[in-house]
């Protein structure tokens, strides 16, 4: 569970490159640096800062303020208020979790600030509550689940699906079922924060399924995979990339080997931007980057590209520059849909062992130029 009151205001004011000349841009990064989910936030922050560093002079007028939300919505709101009122930032970014994004984004964009999402993509923000100043540089929440549904539809005949009983969980299964048209062997909802999955594993064993789709982010996924590997159940596991990302693989250990998972990026994506990102990330921080780092890196690059074209004080021009998405994405192709959410390829990866290190390898492409299901509910054109 979350920790008490979470750290606030770990003000890491970082002036990336000297004092600004003309129209500096001030970016507020609100992310999770303490508590159970800190690993994701740390990766996102590092990825974001790396993009600005790699951009060199192009980013010299971008000033960044980073603060820790401790994965608590009310704290995130408080920090957002502070950044808008006191620090007078132009752009907010960095939030990992959908519930925090839902708390911060609507009021931030209503106050004429830009918000760029490095990870969370809750469906209301893609559909009915979409906003011209809200750009999602990561994915719409359903995307990876849809990709796995698509993959399973082609590969398996009888899948049992499982997720925690909360909105992201139900969205996940909905997304999966949107593309999976074969028989469902069962639909299991677990408790949020659940640590023991014996009861569920027994059900899975008894289900007679030929595959298992899971969405269990963070510690839940680690616990489940360890217990599943020990249970002797041999049904292959598939799932969205979150539970098999670089930050959690070491804690799962070999139990993760062979799991197929979906993501819009993997460290073996074949393009120059990605290679440079992985290399510099390893050099700078001494570890492999996760997908959270990659998405945040793209977010940083996007801001740099827009800043080169327009002043942030001219909101309309800056918005147009963002929407053009003319930056070198580590994902290769990247563009924005009408609702300011990505159109991108989504891959299927497999967890492998590279020497002693567990990592992911791309084995297929589930979707090419994939958008999301909510764009038509969005009033933006």
């Amino acid at each position, binding site marked *: *569970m*979350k*920790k*008490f009151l979470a750290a606030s205001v770990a003000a890491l004011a970082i002036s990336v490159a000297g004092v600004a000349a003309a129209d500096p841009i001030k970016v507020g990064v609100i992310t999770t640096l*303490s*508590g*159970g989910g*800190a*690993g994701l936030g*740390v990766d996102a922050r590092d990825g974001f800062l790396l993009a600005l560093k790699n951009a060199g002079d192009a980013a010299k007028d971008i000033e960044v303020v980073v603060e820790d939300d401790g994965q608590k919505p009310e704290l995130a709101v408080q920090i957002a208020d502070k950044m808008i009122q006191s620090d007078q930032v132009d752009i907010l970014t960095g939030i990992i979790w959908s519930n925090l994004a839902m708390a911060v984004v609507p009021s931030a964009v209503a106050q004429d600030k830009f918000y760029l999402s490095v990870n969370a993509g809750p469906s209301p923000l893609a559909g009915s509550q979409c906003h011209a100043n809200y750009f999602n540089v990561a994915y719409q929440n359903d995307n990876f689940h849809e990709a796995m549904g698509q993959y399973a539809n082609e590969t398996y005949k009888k899948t049992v699906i499982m997720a925690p*009983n909360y909105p992201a969980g*139900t969205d996940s*299964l909905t997304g999966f079922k949107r593309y999976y048209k074969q028989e*469902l062997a*069962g*639909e*299991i*909802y*677990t*408790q949020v*924060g659940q*640590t*023991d999955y*014996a*009861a*569920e594993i*027994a*059900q899975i*064993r*008894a289900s007679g399924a030929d595959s298992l789709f899971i969405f269990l982010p963070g*510690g*839940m996924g*680690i*616990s489940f995979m*360890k*217990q599943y590997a*020990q*249970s*002797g159940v041999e049904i292959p596991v598939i799932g969205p990339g979150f539970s098999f990302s670089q*930050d*959690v693989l*070491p*804690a*799962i*250990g070999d139990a993760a080997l062979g799991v197929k998972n979906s993501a819009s990026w993997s460290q073996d994506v074949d393009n120059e931007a990605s290679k440079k990102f992985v290399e510099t990330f390893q050099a700078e921080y001494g570890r492999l980057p996760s997908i959270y780092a990659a998405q945040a890196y793209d977010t940083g690059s996007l801001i740099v590209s827009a800043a080169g074209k327009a002043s942030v004080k001219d909101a309309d021009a800056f918005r147009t520059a963002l929407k053009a998405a003319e930056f070198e994405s580590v994902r290769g192709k990247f563009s924005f849909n009408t609702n300011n959410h990505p159109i991108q390829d989504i891959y299927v990866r497999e967890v492998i062992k590279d020497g002693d290190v567990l990592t992911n390898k791309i084995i297929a492409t589930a979707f090419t130029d994939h958008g999301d299901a909510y764009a038509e509910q969005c009033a933006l054109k």
Partner: protein
Amino acid sequence: MQTALFIEQLLNGLQLGVMLFLMAAGLTLIFGVMGLINLAHGSLYMVGAFACATVAAYTGSFWLGLIASLAAAAAAGAIIEILVIRRLYERDHLDQVLATFALILVFSEGTRWLFGSFPLYLDIPPLLQGTVPLPGGSRYQLYRLAIIGVGVAVAVGLFLLITRTRLGMRIRAGESDREMIGALGVDIRTLYTIVFALGAALAGLAGAMVGALQSVQVGMGEPALILAFVVIVIGGIGSIRGALVGAVIVGVVDTMGRFLLPQIFGLFMNASQAGIVGGALASMLIYIVMAVVLAVRPQGLFPAAKG
């Protein structure tokens, strides 16, 4: 197949109950002897898991890790007993709650300071990997059976310790009359430290064993702590027997609720909705059971024989 699944789920419930018993036994023992409510018990559980994972990672041996977890949790327990807890015996429950709540903060943040935010890796020892066949054709995980075995052994051990040994006699004396035991010439401060360390070691053992099944991370002790509270409230605070019965009730009810409720709701709504509604109800089920028990017996099922 249904029967086999049912048996398997019953075993799962039993295994969860046994884990909870290890936590609850320490809590209830400490309350029974010293009259202290210890919120930081979950932190000792976490200490056990981290100690086991660290030592196992260094030496490659889970068993050394298990020993380390007992030692580390007992040591941590003894240290906080001497530094902090000892000053709280004469205080009211409010002070005890506050001080041990503060200890949670110190332990959680301190552990994060030492080990970082990423979860640690701990695996089941090779000896206990794999499964055994169950009647009805299903299979059951060996490690979980081993946990049940350890829990039963601890329960028997505690029973023998309390009824048959000198230490146990003193513990019982301490439960019934705190002044008298001082008059008997027993060094009460040492006794309290020993009891506290014993409770801590049990929590550490639970943490280490569960650590091999779950993610070893900061904050892992809190859900276990709250469940252990429910257990001892149902069982009767201060009663080891109550803790055992309460733990098995909570373990089985929780597991069976998660397993059966969605199926029951599935009889009259679609699977997806039944999963959500059943799951929501299942997550509250043990609290409902607790409320019912208390409505009938406000002192729990086995009220400790006190005043």
